[in-house]
């Protein structure tokens, strides 16, 4: 009994469990699916499938394919090469531009399952292998590095025959970055990458794709490290900066050193007027007197002259012929007019005065002197206080010029305003006053003023001597005829002259020369163009001085030979006329006393002295002369 129960229980248990054991259901396999088909080189291809459930039973799979436009079904030739659940089609089995209709069948004991068919054209499923033999190198382009990546197409892909044409693409990134930088390389197999970071580590990968197909996988990564070039670049900049700063400093220093000369070059100083002897400091100090005193030439104006005494002209003895006396009287009538400095009739004899030979004549010819003494006296009287400068001669001439007429004026006259006489004359050249000959001034006086002395008749008479005051004043020649008159008139105008009629014959007050011991008077005829003073010796009896407007028909002419170093006028006698008065010693060298003979007559007056040529040649040269020589003419007149 017990045994039966146990067997029953065991049987029940067996019965109970067996169905569990036997519970696995077998079913036909599930439907497989073709996952993909790929061709690496367009010559073979592989298809993979995914099997379905196997239904618990061993399941086999089979791939069948059908080619386009053919009903024939082929089975996969190779299930193993490509791995599990794959089918590999080799070259023989592969046709391009043919549509494959592929189906996978899973089979087990219970049944089979068919996958969905897939149409495959090998042309469109090409996925090449990645490029091979990839190399990355660092190269330099003008000091700047760049990466050169080169590769080879995958070995299987036949690009050489043109069967496949591939295009490539690469990607680069720095090691620490996350994003790749893509570059499409086209058909070429090399590529350059620029703009690298100095000292960076780069990763490079390449892939390829046929014209119409799938991209390959990325190739294996290439690592490259860029060398450091940043320092070199920076050092260049630093060097450049230092160098330019250095240059700049040098330029600044040079500019500073040459600032003045540069300033003169760029902004040249405007030349200002310079007055000789003008002291700016004095002007600034406000002492005008000193300033102008500095401007004053020592001898000009002849207000204060140390050589005053020297320059005083001694009285002259003037030989005035009778006619002249007559004329003088006539002229007295005109005296007033002349005094007024009116325009007087031209005097052909103008040029009288000291220029006049008569005035100059210190007569050896006694009677002439006698006659002239009157005038001399008068004139000397007149001229005692005359301030004689170099212009004194002019005064004399002037006075003499007025001798006939104006001499009365001059006789007492103190010509005080000498400077004014001379100053307004515009014809004065730029010669320094020192050098300017009194004669010149006289000339100019004569020129500037119209002749006051109207002694027409007189002029012709040459009583006053030839007014051959032929100053070689060039174009002023015509006026030379009346220098005396002009001068005289000026004198009249300017001088406060107590004019007394001292008679016709008057000589201008002798200009006292410092060492004047003239014994003879020499009449200065004229000065010709060669700077020769033509003198006519005054010889008693030879005082035939003919007034002539032009050529002196004087008897004797003294030619100024020259002036020697001692400021002596060397005269040269020249025989011109038959009336050569002998005894005229033209040597003028301080002369002896013919002059004085006449001078003694005028006691009250200064001794008539030879008319000292008031114009020293240089400085206050006192020409002691026997005759009057107009130093003015002696001086080489610039215009002559």
């Amino acid at each position, binding site marked *: 009994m017990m045994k039966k129960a146990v067997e029953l229980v065991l049987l029940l248990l067996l019965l109970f469990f067996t169905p569990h054991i036997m519970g696995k259901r077998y079913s036909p396999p599930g439907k497989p699916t073709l996952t993909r088909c790929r061709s690496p080189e367009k010559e073979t291809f592989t298809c993979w499938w995914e099997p379905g459930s196997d239904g618990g039973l061993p399941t086999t799979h089979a791939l069948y394919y059908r080619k386009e436009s053919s009903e024939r079904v082929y089975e996969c030739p190779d299930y193993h090469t490509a791995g599990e659940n794959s089918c590999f089609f080799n070259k023989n089995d592969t*046709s391009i531009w043919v549509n494959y209709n592929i189906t996978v069948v899973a089979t087990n004991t219970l049944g089979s399952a068919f996958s969905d068919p897939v149409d495959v054209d090998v042309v469109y499923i090409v996925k090449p292998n990645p490029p091979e033999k990839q190399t990355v190198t660092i190269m330099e382009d003008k000091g700047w590095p760049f990466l050169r990546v080169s590769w080879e197409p995958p070995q299987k892909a036949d690009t050489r*025959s043109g069967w496949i044409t591939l295009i490539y693409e690469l990607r680069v990134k720095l090691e620490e970055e996350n994003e790749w930088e893509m570059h499409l390389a086209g058909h070429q197999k090399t590529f350059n990458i620029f703009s690298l970071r100095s000292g960076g580590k780069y990763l490079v990968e390449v892939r390829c794709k046929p014209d119409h197909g799938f991209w390959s996988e990325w190739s294996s990564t290439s690592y490259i490290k860029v060398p450091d070039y940043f320092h070199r670049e920076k050092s260049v900049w630093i060097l450049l900066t230092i160098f330019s700063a250095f240059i700049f400093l040098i330029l600044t220093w040079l500019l500073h050193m040459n600032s003045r000369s540069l300033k003169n070059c760029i902004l040249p100083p405007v030349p200002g007027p310079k007055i000789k002897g003008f002291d700016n400091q004095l002007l600034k100090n406000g002492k005008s007197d000193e300033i102008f005193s500095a401007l004053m030439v020592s001898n000009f104006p002849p207000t204060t002259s140390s050589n005053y005494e020297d320059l005083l002209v001694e009285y002259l003895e003037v030989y005035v012929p009778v006619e002249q006396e007559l004329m003088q009287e006539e002229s007295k009538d005109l005296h007033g007019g002349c005094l007024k400095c009116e325009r007087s009739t031209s005097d052909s004899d103008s040029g009288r005065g000291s220029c006049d030979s008569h005035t100059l004549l210190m007569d050896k010819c006694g009677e002439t002197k006698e006659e002239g003494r009157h005038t001399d006296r008068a004139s000397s009287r007149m001229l005692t206080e005359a301030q004689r400068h170099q212009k004194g001669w002019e005064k004399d001439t002037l006075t003499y010029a007025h001798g006939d007429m104006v001499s009365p004026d001059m006789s007492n006259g103190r010509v005080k305003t000498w400077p004014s006489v001379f100053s307004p004359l515009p014809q004065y050249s730029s010669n320094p006053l020192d050098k300017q000959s009194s004669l010149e001034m006289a000339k100019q006086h004569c020129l500037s003023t119209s002749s006051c002395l109207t002694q027409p008749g007189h002029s012709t008479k040459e009583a006053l001597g030839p007014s051959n005051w032929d100053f070689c004043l060039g174009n002023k020649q015509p006026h030379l005829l009346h220098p005396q008159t002009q001068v005289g008139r000026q004198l009249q105008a300017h001088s406060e002259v107590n004019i007394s009629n001292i008679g016709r014959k008057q000589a201008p007050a002798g200009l006292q020369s410092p060492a004047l011991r003239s014994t003879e008077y020499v009449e200065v005829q004229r000065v010709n163009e060669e700077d020769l003073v033509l003198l006519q010796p005054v010889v008693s009896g030879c005082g035939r001085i003919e007034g002539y407007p032009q050529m002196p028909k004087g008897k004797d002419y003294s030619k100024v030979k020259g002036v020697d170093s001692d400021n002596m006028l060397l005269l040269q006698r020249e025989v011109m006329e038959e009336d050569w008065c002998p005894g005229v010693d033209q040597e003028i060298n301080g002369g002896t006393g013919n002059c004085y003979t006449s001078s003694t007559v005028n006691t009250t007056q200064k001794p008539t002295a030879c008319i000292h040529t008031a114009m020293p040649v240089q400085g206050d040269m006192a020409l002691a002369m026997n005759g009057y020589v107009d130093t003015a003419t002696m001086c080489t007149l610039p215009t002559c």
Partner: protein
Amino acid sequence: MTYSLLVACGLVYMELSMRVVTAPICAYGQAGCHAPSLADLFERVIQQSSRMHGISSDLHSELEQYFFPRKNVLGKHKCHTYGILTPDDKENAQRLGREQLTDVILSLLAAWSDPLSQLHRSMSQDQNQNFNDHSYSKALEISDMVHELREGVAIMAEKMKLLGVLGNTMGYISPESLVPSSAFTFYKQGELNSVDHHDLLYCFRRDSNKVKNYLQILKCTILPGLDC
């Protein structure tokens, strides 16, 4: 007035001095035309064919998305150019030889001139309005390109013959003998419908790919070099 004259003179001078040399391209090197090199010709032709293939692919994919994908392409139909024997793998293509390969190319191109224009015409007349403007322009474009490419390849073949690269053994086989004259007669009697369009484009897409590939093979055979 003088200024305008000066300007005119300047312009005339510029015109004369900067004359751009333009000359028609001819393969035969006649006088007055600028004959390109064989490499240039190959490059142009290959580019053209590649472009043509791309446009046809686009057009085909456009059509395909509008229609339910047909699993069984063409069904039992074939492309009308099935008569033209074309090498279907590399060995066969290389074995074929240059002259025959050129013949095949020319035949293919000749076979597609009319069908494509018909396709274009048919597409524009389609009542379904399944095509957008781009499709029409693409269809027109590929029909034009086929003509141009055919002429280009012909010129290139002539040049190759001149150069001695290509033998004269090739006999130009008239495509008409191989190919049905009209797509109408082949594909369908009467008008082409959209299904026909799709089939037609499928066939042309493949054939353009063939042309392109054959040209590339030809190029690398005759001018091995950089790109090969």
